[in-house]
């Protein structure tokens, strides 16, 4: 159902928006609970932090950042079309423009998050 209906860029934009939104929602639940532990049980919070700071945790944060960035940029595209209906005929151009911005922000961002893992792996 997610990918077979109608097809095309608009359909993909919608499917990615939905999948990224659900992923962010799930992380929000985890994140509010873990921050609650900063006051409720600081030791337990620090144990969870060790997982976030591990190599697998960092890969998870890169994926979270990708979901967040995509959802934010595509949300902006939706808003532009809602506020300015004439832009509907340029919705494909807007979708490709959002990917240009995505790549420009995502690649340096991912490198920064992964640097503590990459540096020893590359012998730097």
């Amino acid at each position, binding site marked *: 159902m997610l990918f077979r*209906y*109608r097809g*095309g860029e*608009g*359909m993909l934009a*919608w499917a990615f*928006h*939905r999948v990224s*939104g*659900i992923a*962010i*929602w799930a992380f*929000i*639940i985890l994140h*509010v*609970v873990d*921050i*609650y*532990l*900063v*006051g*409720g049980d*600081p*030791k337990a*919070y*620090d144990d969870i*932090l060790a997982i*976030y*700071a591990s190599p697998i*945790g*960092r890969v998870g*944060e890169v994926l*979270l*950042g990708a979901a*967040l*960035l995509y959802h*934010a940029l595509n*949300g*902006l595209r*939706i*808003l532009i*079309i*809602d506020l300015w209906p004439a832009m*509907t005929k340029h*919705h494909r151009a807007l979708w490709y423009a959002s990917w240009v911005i995505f790549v420009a922000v995502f690649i340096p*961002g991912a490198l*920064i*998050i992964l640097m*503590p893992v990459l540096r020893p792996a590359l012998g730097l």
Partner: protein
Amino acid sequence: MISIDPRTRGRARPRGSGLELFAWYAMRVTGVALFVLALAHFAIIHFVFDVEGQTAEWIAQQRWNQLLWRAFDWALLMMVLFHSFMGMRTVLADYMRSPRARMIALTVLGVTALFLVVIGTAVVMTLPVPGAG
């Protein structure tokens, strides 16, 4: 009914007035707020600092030692809980056909959201500032 125009945009704006129209606008207003708040929060946590050093003590001593950053994170919390749980409401309404199952799922969703509002607000408002009173 909740519906999507998948070719171009998000949900079509509900006709008339009332709660659904309010929800439609509220998703867009909170979305714009989150574009700034959530991306800034992510950049601070992951680009300005590194996750490694962000222990419970660091949060109490550094990150939340000013009202500004507590207010920032609390505003983000309110916006994101509203936006994400209202979004999940749309998702559930799209896939759940049985009115009874949908009612149960929406109730669980609403109770979960309220619970997170309470515990999130509690920690951001009550975590002691070191050296205060």
